[in-house]
């Protein structure tokens, strides 16, 4: 038996091939834009998922890293003409540094207070970015001059953006998959479920939380660089926005936190919904986010584990029924909460 040619792996390869073929389907610009947004949001949300979904650190300051990424590459390009590809490396380095600086003190806080601290950090950075006019041009924002070419990561057509977003997303998914299967994943989940128990079992919790925040912030920074080159305009309100952090979290929560493909599923469902609502009710500002909020409440109240784990549980239960055995399915990704037929 060839271990590399299992059913799962073949499906995976076919899936990735399918994704690479998407630009050949003749989608118009609008649909390509939505597809790119899906890939982009799935990638940002996937980076959040590593820290929040696996390590259980519910950050609402992910915009910090996203924004840092966007500003770093943009400033390097506009002030020194340095290619965003190099800017991306610098941005990731900077995000690792800032991630460590914020993570180290904040990891002493738990639950909502960790969340509040990340929110506060995010606001401080937004305010500083608005204030530091010489560097960031303040609230006016930065318009990135359009100079198409691979070295500037700017393109007339949507295809190259699609491929860059896809590669970033695949990187996020691959890293998440690796974490999920490795010892690190088990450690992180143990930390998420019960930090004290994890510590008493000898898991170096501070070190593993730090790994999670570093991976997560580095990837988020990368997505920020992509965003700046795609939209060609950044300002503090857009890239250091709390609502953006919330939206990123929401996508993972809906798809399923602490799962490899949850963020992608969340993005596939929510981004088109968002865009459809926005174009259908363009006169009605806020309707799309109103519905986001509504969906968020519904999902956390009704299926707190998100769609992917819930569907998996149904399937397991259905197969168990077929076999004539009744079993309680405990979801390992969910605090051992028993998701049995009583729910």
């Amino acid at each position, binding site marked *: 038996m060839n271990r590399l040619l299992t059913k799962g792996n073949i499906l995976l390869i076919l899936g990735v091939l399918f994704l690479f073929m998407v630009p050949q389907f003749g989608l118009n610009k609008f649909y390509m834009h939505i597809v790119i947004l899906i890939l982009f949001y799935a990638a940002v949300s996937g980076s959040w998922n590593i820290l*929040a979904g696996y390590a259980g650190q*519910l950050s609402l300051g992910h915009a910090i890293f996203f924004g840092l990424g966007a500003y770093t590459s943009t400033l390097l390009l506009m002030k020194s003409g340095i290619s965003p590809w190099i800017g991306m490396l610098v941005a990731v380095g900077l995000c690792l540094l800032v991630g460590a600086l914020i993570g180290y*003190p*904040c990891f*002493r*806080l*738990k*639950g*909502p*207070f*960790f*969340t*509040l*601290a990340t*929110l*506060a*950090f995010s*606001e*401080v950075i937004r*305010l*500083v970015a*608005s*204030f530091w006019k010489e560097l960031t041009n303040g609230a006016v924002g930065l318009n990135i001059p359009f100079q198409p070419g691979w070295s500037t990561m700017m393109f007339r057509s949507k295809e190259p953006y699609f491929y860059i977003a896809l590669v970033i997303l695949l990187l996020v998914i691959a890293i998440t998959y690796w974490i999920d299967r490795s010892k690190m994943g088990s450690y992180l989940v143990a930390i998420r479920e019960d930090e004290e128990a994890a510590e008493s079992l000898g898991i170096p919790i501070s070190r593993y939380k730090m790994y999670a925040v570093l991976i997560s912030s580095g990837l988020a920074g990368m997505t920020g660089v992509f965003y700046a080159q795609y939209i060609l305009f950044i300002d503090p309100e857009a890239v250091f926005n*709390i*609502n953006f952090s*919330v939206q990123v*979290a*929401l996508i993972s*929560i809906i798809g399923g*936190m602490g799962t490899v493909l949850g963020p992608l599923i969340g993005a596939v469902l929510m981004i088109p919904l968002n865009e459809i609502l926005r174009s259908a009710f363009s006169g*009605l*500002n*806020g*309707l*799309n*986010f*109103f519905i*986001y*909020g*509504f*969906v*968020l*409440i519904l999902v*956390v*109240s009704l299926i*707190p584990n998100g769609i992917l784990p819930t569907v998996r549980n149904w399937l397991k239960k259905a197969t168990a029924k077929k076999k004539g055995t009744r079993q309680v399915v405990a979801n390992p990704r969910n*605090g051992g*909460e028993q998701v049995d037929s009583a729910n």
Partner: protein
Amino acid sequence: MAQLMQIIISGILVGGIYALISMGLNLILGVVRIINFAHGEFLMISMYISFLFFVTWGLDPYLSAPIVVLLLFIFGCFVQRIIIQPILETSATVKIFATLGLSIMLQNLALMIWNADYRTVHTAYQTSVIRLGEVAISVPRLIAFAVAILIAVALFLFLQNTLMGKAIRAVAMERRAASLMGIHVKKIYLIAFGIGSALVGLAGSLLMPIYYVFPTVGTLFVLTAFVVVVLGGMGSMLGAFLGGILIGLVEALAGVWISPGLKEAVYFVIFILVLLFRPSGLFSLGKGSEEVGLK
């Protein structure tokens, strides 16, 4: 010197409003053990209701305050019953994101109805000041501050002396024991959430003659309220009150000494420092902190 006095006084007066908002948030946090991320939106709603009373019937924000307070009490009870009660036994993620979802919904509902314009009311007393030597004290701010003190005292007396107040404190301290003593814990949750929302309703009414209302006005104040609650200590009404005044003061001084653009950044930095070095707050009762994640 007079200028410094002026700054200090305005800071303390603004602190009164912060204290009112924070006391509501703190009551909900201390009793129901939930961080209401939509608390700022409750403030925004009460400001819009106050604004509506003004433009529809010409009712002064101070006169409509009792109605706003009552409406917010009912709204708070409704939210507690429909959204909060069912998720009380769940994980931190669910609790955080349910109230965040509510916050997003309310903010965007306001955006749909009133769009992003800044709206304000115009009253005769709005710009009137009392002069004490070289120091000018704004009348609406002074009123807001006086009411904040009054409410703080009333709330304290209510919690200390009435049967209901004692029941609320009992639930805050040890809800299992309280429930064994025959206290209807769910009812107490409902009332505490209602009172917390009513306090915000009052804050909104008092704020309307001083400040603009717009859909995201809550974000501005709720983050301050979080700072105050952590600074003052969870579950401590006195802490929330003093914390509110302290933050008002810090904000005013930072606005002058550092820069108006960075004054909020300054108190967030204080917030982060307090979280890191004294997460139980300056006046904490320490009860139940572990449940909401402070230990």
